[in-house]
């Protein structure tokens, strides 16, 4: 498996390309929560003129990009603890209001990382099986509350094991919540009828993606991801 990944590596999407795929799917007027890591790259790929608002669970509605040099403010940070800004028309709220937004169904989308996603949409991203404890943060609240949960992750583990599986083996974050998966190989929708392969990275085939996936993929209508040159 790892040999196969090495062979494929030139065709795998970069983190920025995955972020661009997600950004293309975030719609005008959506309020979106971004998890730590790869999701934080997404805002720079939102097409100019499209009004997507970002929510940060530590109390920011309308989170903007990192500050310009000299404009840093230690009282204005993201949930990932990076320095950020507030967009014009943004607002600050307290923690219970912030999570009321999440659990109350006001998040149009949450984009989170994951260790494992099951074919039924089970999300596993807070604790590894061999750890006695994890850092849950706001992941469980956001995952159960958001209207859509998009996952960004590498398609397989470093050892080449599938991270998209028929049934989860990792500790659960939230059951049946994931609606779409964006990896370095493909974009996959989670539907009541199973996983649907929507698009694959240029240079890969549907069989390549299926071989690296632990659950059946419906590839009847698969397209190719367009990536910037």
């Amino acid at each position: 498996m790892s040999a196969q990944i090495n062979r494929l590596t030139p065709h795998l999407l970069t983190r920025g390309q995955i972020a661009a795929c997600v950004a293309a799917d975030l719609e005008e007027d959506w309020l979106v929560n971004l998890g730590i890591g790869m999701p934080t790259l997404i805002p720079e790929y939102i097409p100019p003129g499209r009004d997507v608002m970002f929510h940060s669970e530590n109390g920011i509605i309308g989170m903007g990009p990192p500050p310009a040099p000299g404009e840093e403010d230690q009282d204005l940070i993201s949930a990932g603890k990076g320095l950020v800004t507030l967009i014009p028309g943004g607002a600050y709220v307290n923690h219970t209001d912030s999570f009321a937004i999440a659990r109350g169904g006001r998040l149009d989308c949450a984009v989170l990382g994951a260790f494992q996603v099951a074919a039924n949409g089970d999300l596993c991203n807070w604790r590894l099986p061999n750890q006695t404890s994890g850092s849950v943060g706001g992941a469980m609240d956001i995952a159960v509350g958001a209207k859509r949960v998009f996952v960004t992750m590498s398609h397989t583990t470093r050892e080449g094991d599938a991270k998209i599986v028929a049934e989860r083996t990792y500790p659960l974050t939230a059951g049946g919540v994931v609606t779409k998966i964006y990896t370095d190989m493909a974009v996959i929708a989670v539907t009541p009828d199973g996983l649907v392969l929507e698009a694959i990275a240029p240079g890969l085939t549907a069989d390549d993606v299926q071989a690296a996936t632990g659950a059946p993929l419906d590839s009847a209508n698969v397209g190719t991801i367009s990536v910037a040159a």
Partner: protein
Amino acid sequence: MKKKRAETLEDAVANVEDGATVLLGGFGGTSVPEFLIDGVCDRGLRELTIVSNNAGNGRTGLARMIEEGCVAKLICTFPWAKDSFVFKELYDAGKIELEIVPQGTLAERMRTAGAGLGGFLTQTAVGTDLAEGKQALTIDGKDYILELPLRADMALIKAYKVDPRGNLVYRKSARNFSPIMAMAADHTIVEVAEEVAIGDLDPEVIITPGVFVDRYFITGPYDLGRGKR
């Protein structure tokens, strides 16, 4: 009018006792009441149960409290940050107890306590390790778990401005948990950069009314957003 202003740090934290449950403001580096924490550390208090989003960063603030052996138990959401090495060392040595709570649930458990309620039902953590031992209920076809209020003896928080009645405003994302913690403790102590006269805070923008504040200590002007360091 009751005098809420403490003239010295020692006076501000004089009511904190060994074995107390203490809500500690702070999200990452923001809103950490570092002066009050130092005051508690200087008193050499023991067996505290601390409620805080993080497990301390670096060697100051909560990390100092933990390192000096003040803390018997930590209730938090995100213990395993890279710079929480002081906590990790004591946890690995079996010298500190840990309870992990999802972030939205942590905030709502405190709000519930402050609001005089007996608990609440949430979909957060249903089916996960963090639901173990909790009562499950199904309402209108949705699965919930019962979460109980988290009331505390003390809250130590940081605010931006205060008036003599204890009315508070915060700054940017440094609001987060602080207004909730102020509600949920029997005794709330605030460190605050600036005191203004009664009437100088616009009643429309006061976030925490003085009814939730027992004592405050003026840390004096400092560079906004920089904290104690």
